[in-house]
Every structure is written in C-alpha cells, then in structure tokens.
C-alpha cells in the first residue's frame, strides 16, 4: 500500500480546509446516523470525509456515494465536531463533470435553462392544459364542483404567485387541482406565470450552483413582473 504524504496532497477541488483532517474524530456517529450506510460498498459519511481529508477526494467524486446520499443532513446534524458533511457531499456533486451526472438531473436542468421547465413543456401547450383543467374543475362532480374557477395566468397584483412542478402537467395533471380547490374555497387572489413557472430546482440536486441561481432569479422575476408579494413554492 502506498504511503500518503499529507504535505503533498493535490489541490482540493472541494476547497476543503486541511484542518478538517483533524476536526473529524473518526467516531462514526455520522455512520450510525446515516440511512445510506451500507448501500455503497466501502463508502459511508465517515470513510468519504476521511478520504477527502487525506487527499483522496477524486475517489469520492468518482464514486456513486455522493448520489446515493440523499443530502438529508442527519450526519452533519449529529456530528459532535460540527463537520460540514452535507455541504461537502453536495460539493462532490458540483465538481463532477456534467456529462457524468447520473440520471436525468443535468439534462432536466439544461432543459429548464433553455425552455423554462425541466421537461420542456411549450408555453401554448401549458396554457391550453391549464384552461382545460380549469373547465374540468367547474364541472368536476367527484369532488365538489367549482363553478367560476379558472387558472389565473400572468395576473398582476395577485396575492400569491404559485410555481408548478413539471411532472404534474406532464404526467399527473389532476394533482394540480388539490391546491386549486383550496384557492377556490378560500377565494384567494392568486396567479401562475405563463413562462419559467418551474418550481423544481434540479440544479440544487445536480450540484449546479449557477443554474440553481438562474432558476431562483426567474421565480423572483415572475413575482416582480406581476407585482405579487408572496411566492408559494410547493416543493
């Protein structure tokens, strides 16, 4: 086995302060706290943090550990030394090459940047779907029907602007009616934006801080443009 010379550790992509090697007591509290312990052979919060502290961070970045970890933060919460495990594991996602981000997270993030929602639903399709679901709400007899209901789009000066989760218009459109029925019963003044309405911020999950920020700015921009003071972000 090759001896690790701690003075010759490569420059950390994770920008982890070298003193972290001493902060972690290797007590294993994080391991006990973590429901993902045992799911990826060789890796758990402690071995991952130790490997990073010892200059072997690329092994952690290349492993599937940071992606099987759900970033729940229980390890960090329980750590008696205050090690920022959650932050470190998310950073491992950030520094991975974008074409190696597993699953559809990066693809969806790029789709969102380009088209305004993770699944690339066109504006006109969305407007017609909202109108059509609104008409169903007026007649729906499974639950109480809601005559007078429609989905207010781009309505200025509403009390609340609501983001939407693209999975719902795409696959489970009726699930949007739960929230709408509450607004109808409360006679709430609300609206949605016709563009950039996505509420699911996959940049958060893929570790893409720049895209995450763009998404947040869009949500804020919609509220400012329509002069709405409250953003409801049901994610």
């Amino acid at each position, binding site marked *: 086995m090759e001896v690790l010379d701690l003075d010759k550790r490569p420059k950390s992509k994770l920008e982890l302060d070298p003193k972290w090697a001493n902060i972690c007591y290797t007590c294993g509290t994080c391991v006990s706290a973590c*429901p993902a312990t045992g799911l990826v052979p060789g890796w758990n919060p402690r071995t991952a943090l130790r490997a990073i502290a010892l200059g072997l961070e690329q092994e952690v970045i290349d492993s599937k550990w940071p*992606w099987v970890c759900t970033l729940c933060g229980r390890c960090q919460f329980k750590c008696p030394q205050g090690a920022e495990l959650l932050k470190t594991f998310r950073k491992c996602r950030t520094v991975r090459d974008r074409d190696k981000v597993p*699953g559809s997270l990066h693809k969806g993030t790029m789709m969102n940047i380009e088209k305004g929602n993770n699944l690339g639903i066109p504006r006109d399709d969305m407007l017609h779907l909202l109108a059509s679901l609104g008409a169903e709400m007026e007649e729906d007899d499974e639950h*109480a029907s809601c*005559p007078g209901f429609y989905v207010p789009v781009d309505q200025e000066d509403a009390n609340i602007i609501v983001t939407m989760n693209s999975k719902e218009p795409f696959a489970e459109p009726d*699930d949007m009616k739960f929230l709408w*029925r*509450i607004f109808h019963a409360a006679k709430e003044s609300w609206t949605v934006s016709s563009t950039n309405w996505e509420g699911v911020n996959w940049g958060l999950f*893929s570790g893409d801080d720049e895209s995450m920020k763009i998404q947040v700015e869009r949500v804020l921009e919609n509220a400012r443009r329509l002069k709405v003071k409250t953003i409801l972000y049901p994610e």
Partner: protein
Amino acid sequence: MAFGDHCGEMSRWITAQCCENMVEMVDNPVDNLCCGAGGGAWAGPYAKERIDFGKWKADQIKATGAEMVVAACHNCRDQIKKSLTKEFDLGIETKYVWELVSDSLVIKPWTKTEITKARKKRNAQFVRDGVDLEEL
C-alpha cells in the same frame, strides 16, 4: 394518520385539523428519517439503493399502524406512494398535505355575481393568450 416529514410544525398542525387521530412517526423529528428519494434520488438511476434506503422509512411507517401517511414533499410522496408501498407491502394510502386539505374541504359555492365576474376575467385572459375554450 401519520405525518412523514421533517418539514415543520405548520404541516403537522394542518394535518391534525383534518384528521381525528394523527399520530407522530417518531418521538423526535431528527429521527424521522429521509424517505430515500431526497436530493434528486427519485430522478436518479440508483433504484436499488433508493429502495434499500427507503426500507428505513417503510419500517417507520409500518410501526405507526396508520391507514394514511401524509407528505409535504413531491419526492417523499412519490417514493412512498409509488415505490415503498409496493416494495414493502405497506397497504397504506399516501397524500400530499395539500391534497388532504383539499379532500377535507366543504366548499361553499360562489354566488352568481362572483361566477359571472370570474368568467369575464377568464374570457379576457383567454383572448389575450389565444386560448379557444371551444377547441378544448
């Protein structure tokens, strides 16, 4: 009724208003474990790990003996409803907290004046956006 999140007292209070018998998942919120689909895992390719992770949550849900579990998050709801219920034979109903509220509502119908006013605004919106109600 069991509430499955660590997202706060407000959702807990709302759930309690809709159900006569709400039970807590665990005594201490920090022990209310992640469902296993958080952090983007629901959209990720590691299904086996997601399900094995979710076994912890499935066991917690089972231990409540509840007939319905309420989630305040899309990922938790999908993981419990579409995956864990089947994988671990939970025999439980899963709802979003806002779905529970929606199902609990007794809606007072709007007056004719309110309906007419809303439809007028709706029609103006459809004209502006080029949506033809007849075509729907």
